[in-house]
């Protein structure tokens, strides 16, 4: 009997195939989806990090009523165990008749009212989270929310956890970002006020982006996760412009531009130091000024050089379950002189910019899809990585140095790069691998 093997393609082969001929194995819609701890973020987005449910509670003082079959709320017990969530989730469970007839909809205003009444500290907003069943029933949840809002006298917003539309034009995580900013009403603009959109947790406190913005006269930088109360959240409407740090927030930014006249600028999280610098230059250019980022640039450059000096051209295994875009991070590491033996990620069209360059620098780098059925047979003895990045890559290499690099608090820019290598150094030392502890 021949040994079963996990499917992979080399960077060179994928680059040659091009985005028009991505193999079926790397396109999630063309095969069954393998379910392993490495795919949990895909298969159950609410179970780790910020899924729709947790994200839907980003508005200060909000609570959520999940209207769904029991199975959809099952993993919420985990969220409830996380700090601050145990009293914020409520459920209206649908039965077999509900999922066919939609009769549960009549109960929603009463259920919202009961939730409101049972809370000693009254919520600022009630989010109603609905799932695949209502997507198929074609429920007009906006209308249901208006009815519920009339009943309790506070805003009630829909939150769509439609897994069926995951690869559609407006996936759930895009929709939820739009939802949570939808309560902002037009206000007088303040030229010294800026919002950062995209994440549900803040950037690291020492991120240079804050200092750079302040250096050009920005006095108030708001992120929804740092808003202490509902009033401060509403004050986000006074921003002069929005900075979008995650493409999934683009829809929300466009909506705010239309409704409130707040323009937006999109920045990417990058790990290639020259691209970070270039991005800040372009950002400054768009604002008609120049950022002085030299201090942070030099510090990050030194950090990369120090790390390389300590560990040499070590080999990385990179997954997509981390605070990085896997192909961009892989390219950055290759450009710094390290090796990348494998990448676990489904490539998108946009990734081919990186894949072509990866193919030039490291043609034999293997690209696997976490979701592909044959990953059941992934054999870690085939690859020897010194360190793995991401929850998924760590699953495949359980015994080596690894970092999930997936904290809620977000790395960005030069400081993100510095923290990345700090973390790598820490886990390499913990695994007994070279270099001096600084």
């Amino acid at each position, binding site marked *: 009997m021949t040994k079963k093997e996990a499917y992979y393609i080399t960077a060179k082969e994928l680059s040659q195939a091009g985005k028009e001929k991505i193999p079926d194995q790397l396109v999630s819609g063309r095969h069954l*989806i393998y379910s392993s701890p490495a795919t*949990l973020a895909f298969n159950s987005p609410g179970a780790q990090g910020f899924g729709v449910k947790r994200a839907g509670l980003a508005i200060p003082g909000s609570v959520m009523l999940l209207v769904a079959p029991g199975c959809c709320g*099952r993993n919420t017990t985990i969220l409830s165990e996380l700090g601050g969530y145990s009293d914020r989730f409520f459920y209206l469970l649908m*039965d077999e008749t509900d999922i066919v007839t939609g009769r549960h909809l009549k109960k929603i205003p009463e259920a919202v009212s009961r939730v409101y009444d049972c809370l000693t500290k009254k919520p600022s907003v009630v989010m109603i989270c609905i799932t695949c069943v209502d997507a198929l029933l074609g429920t007009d949840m906006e209308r249901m929310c208006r009815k519920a809002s009339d009943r309790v006298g506070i805003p009630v917003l829909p939150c769509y956890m439609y897994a*069926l539309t995951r690869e559609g034009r407006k996936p759930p995580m895009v929709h939820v970002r739009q939802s949570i900013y939808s309560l902002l009403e037009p206000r007088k603009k303040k030229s010294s006020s800026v919002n950062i959109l995209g994440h549900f947790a803040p950037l690291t406190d020492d991120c240079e982006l804050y200092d750079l913005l302040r250096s050009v006269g920005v006095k108030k930088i708001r992120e929804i996760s740092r808003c202490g109360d509902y009033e401060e959240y509403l004050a986000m409407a006074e921003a002069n412009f929005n900075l979008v740090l995650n493409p999934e927030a683009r829809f929300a930014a466009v909506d705010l531009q239309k409704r409130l006249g707040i323009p937006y600028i999109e920045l990417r999280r990058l790990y290639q130091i020259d691209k970070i610098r270039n991005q800040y230059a372009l950002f400054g250019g768009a604002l008609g000024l120049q950022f002085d980022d030299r201090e942070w640039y030099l510090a990050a450059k030194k950090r990369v050089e120090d790390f390389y000096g300590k560990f040499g051209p070590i080999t990385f295994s990179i997954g997509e379950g981390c605070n990085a875009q896997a192909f961009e991070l892989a390219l950055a590491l290759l450009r710094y002189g390290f090796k990348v033996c494998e990448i676990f990620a489904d490539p998108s069209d946009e990734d081919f910019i990186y894949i072509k360059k990866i193919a030039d620098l490291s043609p034999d780098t293997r690209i696997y899809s976490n979701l592909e059925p044959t990953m059941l047979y992934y054999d870690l003895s085939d690859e020897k990585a010194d360190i793995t990045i991401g929850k998924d890559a760590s699953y495949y290499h359980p015994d080596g140095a690894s970092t999930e690099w997936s904290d809620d608090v977000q790395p960005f820019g030069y400081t993100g790069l510095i923290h990345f290598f700090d973390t790598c150094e820490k886990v390499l030392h913990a695994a007994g691998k070279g270099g001096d502890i600084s």
Partner: protein
Amino acid sequence: MKGLRLYIPPFAPDQSGAAAVLCELGGLIVVLDAGGCAGNICGFDEPRWFGSRSAIYSAGLRDMDAILGRDDRLVEKIVKACKEISGSFVAVVGTPVPAVIATDYRAIGRMIRKKTGMPAIMIDSNGTGLYDEGEEKAWLELFKTFAGGEDSGREGKNESEMQSPEEKASGRIGVIGLTPLNLGGDYDLDSLKTVLAQVHFDRPVFYGMGAGLSEVARASHVEKNMVVAPGGLAAARWLKDRFGTPYEFYCPPEILPEWKGIENRMAELTGRKVLVVHQQALANAIRMKIIATTDSPVTVASWFQMDRKEMAEGDIALKEEEDWIRLVDRGGYDAILADPLLKRAVPGYQGLWMDLSHFALSGKGIV
């Protein structure tokens, strides 16, 4: 209000129960969902999944698959996977999406069998039922398919392995209903072996937990079946009708590692009116132990199936959160043995509370 939960999160659903029964049997398990259900089954309701590689897959349904009913694409994906993955059968586990669009499971089953040549089990769970309902369907389908049911010839059953009741092996006992969901997360199979050996069954067959598909095919060989959870009762009755195999409904509390701690505190229950909340087989057994030790009055309540024949007078089937709150408020119980999750709804309870974990309630945290 029916279905409203203000304090207690939902319990393990039917699809998780079905997957739990099939998890270790070497089949290719396809959860007919968009992705979230498979993740919840594995990431929350199946502790064995973290330590082993199981062939559990999501169908990865998208809106147009559901709207247009593209079953052919689903079957195509399954056939493709069967060529790449070693498996002895295919199991399709339903979720709310196929329930809403009225998926024809029988037709899909026929297509899978025809195109793969493999046995196929179809479980029409819909995510609104509880885990024991899914387990019941899965156990029944499993034995019917592989142990000599009406369709067994077509399903690839080995006829030569079937035996008449006279050929049953002495000392061999089949244990039906063992899944982590029925217990407390942790479980001690050795203690179960010891308990069974004490009553002269020294060769237990733990279906779905250690015993593979070949043992299911030889289900007619066992002298007796022990049903350790209500979800296994229908299958045990079917086996009794089919092979004349008797069964007993009992789950020894010793299988719970925490039982020792509760046993040590048993004297505290003396003179108290006690309420035990768990799945019926285990709760009944705990009641017997408490009565034997303390002679205290004990009521059993369960959120899951309660077999009428196994109920004592006053036992309670719980349905809604309000039922539970009312029961604790007005029942006059001085002591409660129940999963700690249930405490959330009755914070003012003043009596003695002993934690009795039930994985189908509190599950397992993974973050």
